[in-house]
């Protein structure tokens, strides 16, 4: 869901440079305390006492959560505001923080952006407030994503363990087996495109989130972050090489539909069988149901293809956490709400709304796993997706300035899709420009 809305927003984000003068505030003194002496929140007492908090989020299922929450705790008022999706919201948040005014008490932050806010001390460390006791509550991928240094800077709201979504009709029509390894995937791509030149195994015009997730699954660690010391190394990273090898062949042989995700053409392609698979996060089913109604009964889910046969490695793609900005004046109540939405009764309300959980209890519950999806021809898709959540490769790190790095992905790596540049060259350029930015922001990158 997050990725979808993020891409939509990118196209419509249109403020002139004139807004620039208003956008920044030069003062920049930071009031973040980081919260050192806090004791675990006595949520019951805090909720009884009540108060008012403001929540910035674009996740649609939170509306129901807020309604239920206010009903259950009548003394609490929650103002749910959608100030933009993804990057738009981060910009607003960053501005509010540097202005020291209008900062929300709770903010939705995607996993890849958590380090960026944590390192600039913009978020409250939720550990002392009670998050330290939540080890094991959330699946490992999202749980490690909200950690930065020794702190816990958010509670996982949803997760996006990757899986292979495929259009079974296409595979049956051309007599192709569903690929279990990336080599088989490449073969399948060739066969499908050969039998119908209008059909492709997938679409891709260069997507930073997808690329990093693929490298993650291949066991790569191109980003190493230790405080403000950052290393970016694509050239010497084995996982990156594995990905680049296979993907370069797909690009060279024109086996990927040149269609951007979340575009009209994309939805049409998913519906009419010209885009046969999607390797994407577990939050996708709800989007397929609403965006591709003509695909009903045709789509299935399988484990993500593997880099080596017999393995069961996956990675995370998208997903967000709920955080408490350091400038919140009501951090305890904010934490109580975050806890309710991510770990309390809020979870069920969100699952009913089509979200994919990050909580291990739900991922392992029979009720959740055995639910049959009508859209997927009665397949128990949650079994596949929940297994994927358990198989996420550990140890991945995002850059503490991943938001910016992702924004220049198409300037650099994207060129491999439209010109003679190779993926490896593109990645090298991405590395170089990301490093320049990082050094300019006061990090020590590749030094």
């Amino acid at each position: 869901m997050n990725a979808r809305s993020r891409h939509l927003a990118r196209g419509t984000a249109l403020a002139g440079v004139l807004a620039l003068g208003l956008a920044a505030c030069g003062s920049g003194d930071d009031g973040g305390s980081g919260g050192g002496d806090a004791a675990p929140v006595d949520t019951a007492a805090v909720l009884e006492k009540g108060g008012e908090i403001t929540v910035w989020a674009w996740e649609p299922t939170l509306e129901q959560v807020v309604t239920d929450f206010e009903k259950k705790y009548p003394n609490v008022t929650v103002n749910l505001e959608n100030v933009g999706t993804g990057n738009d919201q981060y910009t607003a948040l960053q501005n509010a923080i540097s202005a020291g005014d209008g900062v929300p008490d709770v903010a939705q932050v995607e996993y890849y952006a958590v380090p960026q806010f944590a390192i600039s001390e913009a978020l409250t460390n939720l550990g002392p407030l009670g998050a330290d006791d939540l080890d094991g509550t959330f699946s490992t991928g999202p749980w490690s994503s909200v950690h930065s240094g020794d702190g816990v800077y958010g509670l996982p709201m949803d997760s996006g363990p990757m899986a292979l979504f495929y259009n079974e009709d296409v595979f049956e029509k051309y007599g192709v087996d569903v690929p279990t390894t990336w080599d088989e995937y490449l073969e399948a791509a060739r066969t499908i495109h050969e039998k119908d030149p209008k059909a492709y195994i997938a679409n891709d015009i260069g997507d930073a989130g997808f690329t990093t997730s693929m490298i993650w699954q291949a066991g790569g660690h191109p980003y190493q972050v230790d405080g403000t010391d950052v290393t970016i190394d694509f050239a010497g990273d084995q996982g990156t090489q594995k990905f680049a090898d296979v993907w370069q062949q797909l690009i060279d042989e024109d086996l990927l539909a040149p269609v951007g995700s979340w575009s009209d053409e994309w939805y049409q392609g998913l519906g009419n069988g010209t885009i046969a698979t999607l390797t994407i996060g577990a939050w996708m089913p709800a989007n397929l149901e609403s965006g591709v109604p003509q695909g009903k009964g045709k789509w299935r889910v399988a484990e993500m293809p593997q880099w080596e046969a017999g393995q069961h490695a996956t990675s995370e793609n998208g997903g967000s956490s709920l955080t408490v900005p350091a400038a919140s004046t009501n951090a305890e109540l904010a934490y109580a709400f975050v806890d309710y939405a991510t770990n309390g009764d809020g979870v069920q309300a969100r699952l009913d709304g089509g979200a994919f959980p990050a909580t291990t209890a739900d991922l392992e519950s029979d009720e959740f796993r055995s639910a049959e999806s009508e859209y997927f021809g009665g397949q128990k898709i949650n079994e596949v997706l929940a297994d994927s959540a358990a198989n996420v490769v550990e140890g991945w790190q995002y850059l503490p300035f991943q938001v910016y790095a992702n924004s220049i992905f198409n300037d650099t790596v994207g060129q491999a899709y439209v010109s003679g540049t190779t993926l490896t060259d593109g990645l090298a350029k991405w590395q170089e420009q990301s490093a320049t930015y990082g050094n300019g922001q006061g990090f020590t990158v590749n030094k």
Partner: protein
Amino acid sequence: MFVGPFMLVFALVFLAPIAYSLYLSVFRTQMVGGTTFVGLENYAQAFADPQFWEGLGRVSLFLLVQVPIMLGIALLVALAIDSGRLYGKSFFRISIFMPYAVPAVVAALMWGFMYGTRFGLVGNINDAFGVSLPNPLSPDLVLASIGNIVTWEFVGYNMLIFYSALRVVPHSLYEAAEIDGAGQWRVISAIKLPAIRGALVIATIFSIIGSFQLFNEPSILQSLAPNAITTSYTPNLYAYSLSFSGQQYNYSATVAIIMGLITMVIAYVVQLRGMRKEA
């Protein structure tokens, strides 16, 4: 005393933003390390920034190719309508002006869909005639495609400037020319064009500023062709990306100021040259 309120509004609305941008441009805010005064370092960085110069080169090329085409078409249409030989001239006038009334964002979206090689107009033509037109959104062609959109949008606007200038030329001049035996071409080159020189210069200056500020069209098309239109495709788009994706407000303000100065200088030179001969 009457000037007081004007000066106040002037200072608030015009001078304050410029002063604030100047103020921003001499600082640097880092994620690690906070805000420091850096003097002219941002300017030095911009002058050595290949992305900035590439963007500037791109809009300059755009200016040199697109603006003459657009103004040429606008002038032709204005002369045709003014000649009185065109049937239904108010129909032509309004339909050529119409695109200007379409918001630039909508126009760019509309053209973006038409440029689509799969489901767009280009795709339909390919299917219907069995041809394979080059993709207008590929890196090599996308600047021309943007030029096409901008031309479509602004021909009518410029035509109206020229046409209104032509309308105020006294008819006695045409009659005198006719008596002297001048043909239509002679009338155009000896009377009409010199008479609207001022309008030509104004339209050119507007177009120069418009080209240097190119933003809406590439920004909209970027979502359709992210690999062809980079985040530093035009200087304006670059300033926008720096500010909104990179939180580099200071550097962004610097780029905006440099771009403003360059635009001013070029517009001023054109004005000087254009007006000098008139006297």
